[in-house]
């Protein structure tokens, strides 16, 4: 048997301390991703540190910051009155993810840390630089329908599969981390990383660190926010392409806009240039189209995912249309 030890903690401090002690230890939260990976032989931690009893489930407004604890479940966040009121984009994105049962168990921290769904990553007999560095990328010349069109590397074209993170990156969130050297903050956009030459690392979390919470600044986008997820079936499928769009409108003028795309890159893909283009312009179909074109600069498709070059800009336009027309 592949044995591992299991320990429960009740404080973040103890959790971080335990993590530092053992090289091959991992936190377990909802377990919806980690347990699958263990069963498939993709990962084999020596120790599981159960953090579910750590009191990090808060969902509250602190001044003009929304604080969401790393252990708040996806369901709790999606259905929270304050989230629905101030950040409907986050609520919509969460509800577009996985299934109700999974969302009931999945946590904010676990969602951020979930691994890619690339089939080559999951099949231990196949090459995969993310799972086994140096073995090659199965997807680049293989079945890459679900894969990245932005920021890919020679070594890995996997995408980050989260829906929640697309909304969080669009909303200028910050991640609060705790590690052996104390707490630090990281902009959400800098939390996940591109594959580059280290595809085995999904993000910039340092060894021994724990996600404590996410902070989202309040904004005026709530009235015109939309999350569009294009997928192969209506629920319980990962995004082919998804778009989080939030508009602040004065009449038909775009005062502020936040845009991010999912299913297209190794990290949640913020569309800053398209935002800059739209700011101050009118919310017209023509401007949406131009923004979509800008957003697609540097996109690169592979054999099976060329459709994303059309689907991605179209979905951006659809999301902007829906955000705009939302009552």
């Amino acid at each position, binding site marked *: 048997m592949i044995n591992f030890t299991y320990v429960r903690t009740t404080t973040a401090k103890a959790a971080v301390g335990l993590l530092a002690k053992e090289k091959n230890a991992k936190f377990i939260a909802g377990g919806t991703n980690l347990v699958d990976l263990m069963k498939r032989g993709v990962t084999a931690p020596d120790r599981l540190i159960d953090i579910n009893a750590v009191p990090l489930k808060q969902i509250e407004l602190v001044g003009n910051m929304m604080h969401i604890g790393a252990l708040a479940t996806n369901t709790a966040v999606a259905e929270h009155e304050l989230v629905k009121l101030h950040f409907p984009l986050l609520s919509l994105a969460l509800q577009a993810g996985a299934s109700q049962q999974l969302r009931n168990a999945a946590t904010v921290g676990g969602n951020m840390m979930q691994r890619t769904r690339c089939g080559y990553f999951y099949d231990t007999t196949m090459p995969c630089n993310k799972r086994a560095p140096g073995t090659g990328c199965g997807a680049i010349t293989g*079945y890459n*329908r679900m894969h990245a069109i932005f920021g890919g590397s020679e070594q890995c074209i996997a995408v980050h599969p989260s829906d929640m993170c697309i909304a969080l990156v669009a909303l200028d969130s910050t991640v609060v981390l705790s590690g052996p050297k104390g707490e630090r903050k990281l902009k959400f956009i800098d939390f996940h990383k591109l594959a580059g030459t280290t595809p085995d690392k999904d993000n910039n979390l340092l060894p021994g660190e724990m996600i404590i919470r996410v902070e989202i600044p309040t904004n005026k986008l709530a009235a015109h926010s939309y999350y569009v997820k294009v997928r192969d*079936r*209506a629920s319980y499928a990962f995004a*082919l392409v998804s778009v989080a769009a939030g508009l602040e409108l004065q009449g038909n003028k775009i005062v502020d806009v936040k845009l991010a795309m999912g299913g297209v890159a190794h990290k949640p893909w913020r569309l800053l240039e398209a935002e800059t283009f739209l700011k101050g312009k009118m919310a017209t179909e023509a401007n949406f189209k131009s923004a979509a074109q800008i957003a697609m600069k540097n996109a690169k498709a592979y054999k099976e995912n060329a*459709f994303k070059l059309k*689907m991605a800009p179209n979905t951006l336009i659809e999301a902007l249309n829906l955000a705009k027309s939302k009552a």
Partner: protein
Amino acid sequence: MRDKSLLKEDTDRVDGFDKVTGRAKYFAEYQIPGTTYGVLVPSTITKGKITGIDSKAAERAPGVLAVVSHLNRPVVAGYETGKDQGVPNNMMKIFYTDQISFNGQPIAMVVADTYERAVYAATLVKGTYAKEAFETDFEKNLSKAKAPKNPAQASYLRGTADAYKNAAVQIEASYTLPTETHNPMELHGILANWESADKITVYAKTQGVKATQGTIASTFKLPLTNVQVNSEFVGGGFGMALRTWPLEIAAIIAAKQVNKPVKLVITRDQMFTLAGHRPYAFQKVGLGADKDGQLTGITHEAWGHTATYEDFTENVVSMSKFMYNSANVNTTYKIVPLNVGVPIWMRGPGEATGAFALESAMDEMAHSLDMDPIAFRVKNYTEEDPEKSRPYSSKNLKEAYKMGAEKIGWSKRNNKPGTNKDGNWLVGYGMSTGVFNASRGRASAKGILKSDGTLLLQSAASDIGPGTGTGMVQIAHEVLGIPVSKITFELGDSSFPTAPSQGGSATLSTVGSAVSDVCNALKAKIAEMATQSGLSASAKFVDVLKKNNLPSVEVTMESKGGEEQKKYSMYSFSIHFVQVKVNPLTGVVKVSKIVSVGDSGRIVSPKTARSQMVGGAVGGLGMALTEETVMDHRFGRYVNNNFADYHVPVHADIPEIEVVFVNKPDPYINPMGAKGMGEIALIGFSAAVANAVFNATGKRIRTLPITPDKILA
């Protein structure tokens, strides 16, 4: 809707309570003292030879009893009798040689005292291989297609070949269906227990206890009576449990080796390699018509894949031979051997594959003729079977077209595609026809009337979910007038009177006839006993039994069709209507309404019949929009072999489904006038969706599934 007078009592599913409360026991839930657990070790190469199996570490692992492979397995009597003899179907002989024919082929089975220990030990078994070049890419190997040996699938010609090429209006198109995997919820496997050296009991997952009994008996050279097969409940089959798989034989071999009961339940990814799939299919259809829409030629050519080690064939082009009135028809069907596990019939089998092509082409032709698709079909309606030149036993399709068109709101359909909108979404309507052989085979049943007022019926039939027991109880109720609550139908036991496997929509017709005959015989017997013992001929059977001091009276009978089967062509028909909404920006297709019409004789059990049609529509939705088994041909391995990535429809994909039955008895097929309906529920459905998508967008999608990328392409 249905004619109430035809039906005495509409009943709930007789096993519904047991199923929803978990009382129903499936094969994997049986526990025999001393049970051990088997886990298969799959080959990681696609073709070649096993050069070694290092099982030392596994054998040393805690709890391991054996690592069974071709190197050490016990003698299997049926294996040693020469080439394919003794093993029906040329089934791959498991653990027989060092030969690997497909990726995932089991090279060994680990048996341990617990499942977890067996799972772990299986990871320690290391196979070494001499790899050989392999072929898994269907389209690249089309040139290697061969004609099937089965004469039923020989090429067919009526009139002139390729007559469509001379027609005023012509359609020529190719259609592609990817490999699909059955994916019932219940995983496959078996619990095997040798009671003695030559006597075995198994708890199986099978659509035919008798077929399983026969295969096991011949593989191990045992008398049939020494093989007991139990399979009372089956957690979905969709065709994949219509045969005994080598993995089941593997567990029986292992049980012999360790001399203990062995339970094998395969994993979800093994369901993709070891338990069949719907073969990839490529089809070309040519249709010719005159300006008025009269068909003058139909050409239908189909290719499907099979395994290199066993031929699998199915009826893909049959519908084209008789469905429409065309003087000239030619069809061919060929198979392409690939290094994959062998396919097996899946949901509406080959007929569903063929109907996708033919019914899409019919829609394309109607469009070319600028005719309404229903009017075009009615124009080419056949009152007689043109293939066999004989009448249909019954066919009420014209009425069915009307019923369905009304329910879906066909009048709202615009014959010009891309013109109907709901906000930003394009709206389309599509329809198609489905047809499947309505057969009646040979079956036996036993009926026991008891003095406590109950009736017990037994037959070695199966119930993979359609509600066989429910139907049988209703048939008995109609003949004998006993309340359904006092009738029990037992099945799934190979010691019961013989019944065929549950497939090809034949159970209700075949086993139902046996039940009907047995009940009529019981009725006659009771009447005779009544008069002989001085009671009136219409006396209640309880009173007759009491008067005669008998605890029960019993009849066993075989029942089968007769001359009528030669005089008439017997088919069940369906028509599927769908409304779709298509988002032109994102390519998302939503099926927003479904109406399925069944013309399958008299409806014996309305509730379960409706469920069949609903289930078929859902399976059809999967075929049309979501299901595809993807292989990486560099490795010969499937890349979406799990429930997250192999997309069966979820509730959110399934709209309101309205089911309508013509419900007119067939005068010839069987005593009930009921024709089978499992397959027609799905056959043709995918074409209705593709046709509706065309109507909505003007885009003809000829490769399933219709995923958003194809709409945008």
